[in-house]
Structure formats: C-alpha cells, structure tokens
C-alpha cells in the first residue's frame, strides 16, 4: 500500500518538526505542530470585547513566517476579529478592548510606543470587497509608498509601482492604462490591484479577509496562485469561508468556534484527521 508509506514518512516529518520546535515557547494545547517557518506573529491569551460582549476568548496562536495560515469557522466565530487584532484595526472600533499579547517579531504590537499607522505598513490588509481608491491604477499603488516616504524619486516610485503590479500578477493587463481609474478594472483585477497596493509598502505580514468571496472561479484561481507565490516572501493570514480554498492555499489552519480557537495545526492534518469533533463537524458539514 503505497499511500501508507507516504503517510508514515509524513508523520515522521511532522514529529521531527515538533521536536525541532520543542524549544519554542509552548503554545496552548489547541495549536500543534507549527507548519512552515518560525513564528512571525505570536498571539497569547488574546481576549477581545466589544463593549460588554466578549468576542474572543484566550486565543493563543503562532503564525509562521513564509507560509499561509488559514482561519476558518462559522460566521461570528471571531476569526475576522482575530485577524483585525494583528494590525490593530480593532482600535478604530469604539468600545473595543483587546487583552493579552500579540507580538510581531517579539515586539508587542499593542505597546504604546507602536504607531498603528506604521504597524499597518508592516501588516497589510486585503478585504472581502476590492476597495481601490477612486484614483488611477498608478496612484492606487503609489499612494502607500508616497505617504510612507518609501520612494525618493519619481523614477524610483515608478519602478516600485511596476514591480508591485508585477508581483501581484497584474502588470501585463494594466501596463498600457496605468492612468485609468482603478475602479475601471474587473473585480478580480481590482482585488489584485489592492494586493499590489498592499505589497508596495513592503509589508512583512499580509492579512486577507475573504479575498475571493466576491470573485468568479478564474479570478479566484489567479488570486490563489498569487497567494502561493507571495508566500515565499511574506507571512500571510487568510480568513475564508471556503474549506476547499483553505485546504488549497494554506499550510496551517486554525478553526475558530464561538470566539475560541478550537484547533490549529498543519492543514493536511486538519482536513484529513482533525482531533476535535467540533472541527470535524464543521469541515464535514454536520450539525454542531
């Protein structure tokens, strides 16, 4: 039985990885066997409150660098709330309180010394609906580098816009119409434009909140291909309702349910042999 050998060596690999990472700060029981590289973002006992209502309960999760981490779970489970903690987007919501620690390269992002605007340049975000600025394609991408003073000359800025659009896989489609409005592009192109805008400021982490849910299958495939390419350079966290998408694009998956992280681990294990029955019920489409 060939598949047995495959599975065996796989689990042996996982074990070795566990051993190699055993000296790392231990995470909660629910987060096992970090997939991919060392942890870029570490969340420990994160609790989030919207006024009196608690949205997240003691979430501890390691987000590996140079890998894609997928967050899945039913609506209202807290996965987007958690995503928004990573670049302090929750700061913008009145009455929202975040407890616990989230570190980016071992720096506490909620520290008073951290400027949330600079943090968001390091931790970019892509939303469900493409949200290009009502400006030209060029200006959409040039905006970030300009306000953060990343490019020192016009030619450098032009080079940065081109390389960002190329990395987002959009350059060939827009090279001859850079000065048309960003909103004139198709939905899939707009989403890639937004990704180009996010990577133009050289972020370290890219957060994606259901980036493909408004796109057709072809545009979705392009974005997924892009995510797969970007993962060699960035730490990517994606929230998705599509189980198949989580399985396709991610190396690590975390399952949220009712504000708690139920289980996190290597994507192939979560989708073939989840440990928690709640995870199993959710991904197989059963009544929870």
């Amino acid at each position, binding site marked *: 039985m060939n598949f047995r050998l495959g*599975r*065996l060596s796989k689990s042996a690999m996982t074990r070795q990885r566990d051993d190699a990472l055993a000296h790392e700060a231990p995470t909660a029981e629910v987060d096992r066997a970090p997939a991919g590289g060392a942890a870029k973002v570490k969340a420990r006992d994160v609790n989030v409150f919207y006024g009196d209502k608690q949205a997240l309960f003691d979430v501890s999760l390691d987000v590996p660098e140079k890998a894609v981490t997928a967050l899945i779970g039913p609506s209202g489970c807290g996965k987007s709330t958690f995503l928004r903690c990573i670049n302090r987007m929750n700061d913008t919501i009145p009455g929202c309180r975040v407890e616990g620690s989230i570190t980016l390269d071992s720096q506490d992002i909620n520290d008073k010394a951290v400027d949330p605007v600079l943090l968001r340049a390091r931790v970019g975000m892509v939303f469900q609906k493409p949200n290009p600025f009502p400006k030209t394609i060029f200006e959409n991408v040039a905006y970030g580098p300009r306000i953060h003073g990343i490019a020192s000359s016009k030619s450098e800025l032009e080079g940065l816009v081109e390389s960002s659009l190329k990395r987002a896989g959009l350059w060939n489609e827009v090279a001859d119409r850079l000065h048309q409005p960003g909103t004139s592009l198709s939905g899939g192109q707009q989403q890639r434009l937004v990704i180009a805008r996010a990577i133009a400021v050289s972020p370290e982490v890219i957060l994606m909140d259901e980036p493909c849910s408004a796109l057709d299958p072809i545009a979705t495939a392009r974005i997924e291909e892009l995510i797969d390419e970007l993962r060699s350079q960035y730490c990517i966290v994606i929230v998705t309702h599509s189980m198949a998408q989580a399985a396709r694009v991610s190396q690590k998956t975390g399952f949220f349910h009712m504000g708690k992280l139920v289980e996190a681990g290597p994507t192939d294990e979560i*989708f073939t*042999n989840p440990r928690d029955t709640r995870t*199993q019920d959710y991904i*197989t489409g*059963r009544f929870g």
Partner: protein
Amino acid sequence: MNEHIVKSYEDELNALTAECARMGGLTEAQVADALEAVVKRDQQLAGQVVVRDKRLDELETEIERKAIRMIALRQPLANDLRRTVAAMKIANNLERVGDLAKNIAKRSLVLIEAEPMTPLNRSIERMGRLVSSRLKEVLDAYTSNDVDRAVAVWSRDDEVDEHYNSLFRELLTYMMGDPRTITACAHLLFVAKNLERIGDHATNIAEIIHYEITGQEMISERPKTDSLRP
C-alpha cells in the same frame, strides 16, 4: 456522530458503505461456496461460483464510480473522506478475494477428476474455515465500525500462515510418497495459497478500517510465521 446538514450527502455516504457491506456479504458467500465445492467435490456449486464472480466485478466498478462521484461533487473531508476512500479500497480488496475464490472453484473442477484425498481435504477445510471466519470478522468490524474487532483480526494473521505452512509440508509428504498425486496436490497447494491470500486481504481490510476510523496507520510489525522449510 452528528448528521450532515445536507441530507442527500448523508444518504449517499450511507449508500456507499451499505453497498460495500453488501459486496462483502457476497464475497463471503463466494469463499464459502468455493471451499465447499472443493471439500464436497460439488461440480455444480463450483460452476455457480465462477459465474457469480462477475457480479463482484460489477459491484467493485459501481462502488468505485460512486466514490469518485462523491469526491468530485461533494468534496468529502476528514472522516467522510476517509470513509469514501476506505469504501473504494475495501471494494478493491473484495474484488481480489472474489477472483481468488473463483480460482479455487476452478481448481475444484480439476480435483474432482482425481482420487479423493480425505485427510488433505480436511486440512484444507480447516484452513478455509479459519480464513472465512477472519473475512467475516473483518466485514462485521466494517459494518459495526468497530476498530477493536478489526485490530483483533489484524493481529491474528499468523494463524493462517501456520495452517498454510503445515499444509505445505503435508502436501510435500504426499507428493514424495506417491508421484501420481502430484497433479491434485499441486492444485491443492494453489488452493491453500489462494486461501492464504484471502487471509492477507482480510488483514488489508482491517488496516483500512483502522485508518478509516482513527485516521492513523497501523505501524507496529504484524506477527509473521515464515518458515517454509519442510
């Protein structure tokens, strides 16, 4: 286990398992009848086994088709995925068992033409009974989702090997004692080998059930008796 939200998905998965169980029942009957054809020298029964094997081939194709359809249309995950793949693999093993039973039945037709060798027949019958009971046990484990029962079958594979090895020695003794028995003994040796292989398929099925239910492979070394020297 909670039920699927989409009821037709639940029904299809259950139908797949049920069909696999039905194929199992048919396979058991084929093995039992093939064995009886040898022991009772029943020409008619042997013929029936040969004819009925076609049905097993059809069932295997049907189960495989359904499983592939399930993967394409439902994208089963986790335990559902393991269940789908297990059904396909078990059907595959059962189809092989069916072929082996058919081969035994065919050999019984040749054996009927030779002089009966009662003591050898008894040994074959004992081994056949053991193999049949293992097949029955493992299929019961499948239908009742009982991993312990599957493991029990898996860990007792050496009993069949022991029977095979002793039959092998017995047949050699006969052949050396009277060369006129060589044709019949050679056929009986193949019958024994086929029975031993059916036992191996039962073991395979036990491993598949273990993976289906637990998501883990059986990794420890299976007990094995391999002394083929006479």
